[in-house]
């Protein structure tokens, strides 16, 4: 939460600072901050595993809770679902003891940025990938919880969506500890905050919506549910997938695999349309480039003309 005025300031380090753990004596050199979240701050650092992500929480109990999740998580991982956990330790300063952990640094492009660069036609594919991973997570008895674009990156060759921060992962049947309003079904009035697969699938649907415009629509005062559904059905990019998205919002899929299957069918139904959009986009980009080039040429000639006039009138 960006605007909180509380005294709990996020921990800050100068680039180059050395962190030494109290218990394991491992050294980390801070490179730069990666992100300030609601529950802590993540820094990029050099450690003995090369580049790692260091997470410092606002409260030490929260850090240990997350480490517990990561530990149990690693037992689920066949192909790694989230980042691997390397080290847990305390950083002792004069004022306070900060618990932190080191995990794998996943280098990639944030999801929304990737969609902006590559085009929306990639979105259904990333969602398919995401649903496959979620399915495995759910089968192991876990729900991701705080699923949102900020927690997702796309790594390259091949393009693959990966999870960044799995701190909100919750055992099925418990209550969701951590959520972001836009992606939370409780906020929109679609259900309670109990950890079950359909809770994550709601968030997936909202990520789809978020990616279409790159912004988050306002909830508003009257009938937010109906407004949201109308928005999805009338949106040019979302309309082909509106049925799947709305079904996920209503919690009609009980497994990620079900949603994945229906989405796959939808994609098969609308290939030509997607292709046309992509060609238009490429054409538009090209023409835009041409216009820019022409503009530059015009500017150069005007400057030359003015200069010649100047020379002709004042110097000669």
């Amino acid at each position, binding site marked *: *939460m960006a*605007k*909180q*005025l*509380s*005294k709990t300031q996020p921990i800050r380090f100068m680039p180059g600072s050395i962190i030494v753990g109290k*218990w394991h004596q491992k050294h980390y050199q801070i490179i730069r901050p990666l992100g300030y979240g*609601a529950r802590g701050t993540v820094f990029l650092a050099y450690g003995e595993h090369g580049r790692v992500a260091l997470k410092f929480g606002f*409260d*030490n*109990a929260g850090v*240990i*809770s997350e*480490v*517990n999740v990561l*530990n149990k998580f690693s037992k689920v991982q066949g192909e790694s679902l989230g980042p691997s956990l390397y080290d*847990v*330790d*305390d950083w002792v300063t004069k004022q306070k*003891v900060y*618990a932190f952990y080191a995990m794998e640094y996943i280098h990639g492009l944030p999801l929304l940025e990737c969609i902006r660069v590559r085009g929306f036609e990639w979105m259904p594919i990333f969602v398919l990938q995401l649903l496959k991973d979620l399915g495995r997570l759910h089968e192991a008895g876990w729900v991701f919880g705080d699923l949102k674009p900020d927690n997702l990156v796309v790594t390259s060759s091949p393009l693959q969506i990966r999870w960044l921060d799995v701190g909100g992962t919750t055992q099925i*049947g*418990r*209550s*969701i*500890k951590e959520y972001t*309003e836009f992606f939370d079904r*409780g*906020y929109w009035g679609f259900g*309670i*905050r*109990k950890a079950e697969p359909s809770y994550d699938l709601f968030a997936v649907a909202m990520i789809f919506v978020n990616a279409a415009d790159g912004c988050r629509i306002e909830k508003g005062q009257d009938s937010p549910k109906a407004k949201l559904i109308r928005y999805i059905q009338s949106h040019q990019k979302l309309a082909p997938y509106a049925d799947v998205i709305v079904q996920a919002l209503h919690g009609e899929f009980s497994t990620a695999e079900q949603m994945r299957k229906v989405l796959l069918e939808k994609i098969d139904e609308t290939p030509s349309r997607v292709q046309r959009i992509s060609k238009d986009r490429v054409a538009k980009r090209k023409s835009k480039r041409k216009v820019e080039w022409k503009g530059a040429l015009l500017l150069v000639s005007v400057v030359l003309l003015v200069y010649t006039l100047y020379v002709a009138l004042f110097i000669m």
Partner: protein
Amino acid sequence: MKKGRLKQILLITDGCSNQGEDPSAIAALAREQGVAVNVIGVVSEDQTMDGGIQEVEDIALAGGGISQIVHIQQLSQTVQMVTRQAMTQTIQGVINQELQQILGDSQSMDDLSPEKRGPVMDVVDELSETVNLEVCILVDTSASMEKKLPTVHEALLDLSISFNSRMGSNQFCLYAFPGKHKPTDQLLSWTPQIDSISHAFSKLASRGITPTGPALKGALKSFDKRLRRDLATYGEAAIEDATD
């Protein structure tokens, strides 16, 4: 440790108290009786609460709870977070007491190695999911709060969604201050679900005085009615063995 019950007062206010007892003293009294006092100070965009911030923090500190100053737009998530954090903090306090009895000296969770802390934290998480929770919500309805009340209402409904997603049971009650004739009026008696407060909120007339201390005292009494039904108490801690 058996499944217990955990008691909290949640005070939502936007300024300084100006009548009656020192609210921090009442908060300290609540803490002695096993009730944690959490305080959320709400400010709107065009308003600051310079003097109020200190009081908000003091009350929570004395009451063994958590304080947070937020803009009104962020109230929903803050209410949820503060209540949950306070719950964890109380449970940790109890666990630390137990650890001290077992390990001696001034050992607390933070003195354990991260490897040993893990299983302890598992217990804390397990308890905060299953413990029975009683929250007495105390809302400042003095003149300056009037415009914020619809958002407060929404935040409380949201809190009810969050907590009814837990495995443990919940009881809420709602008080507003200043009251018509007393420092505080009860709007809602103990109930598992907050969904019937819209009419109660619309009836409120905002008044000028802010008797935070006496209002806290009134809220604290709400637990008495429930306490009589409880037979056993768990030491001085805020968790009691449930008898129901």
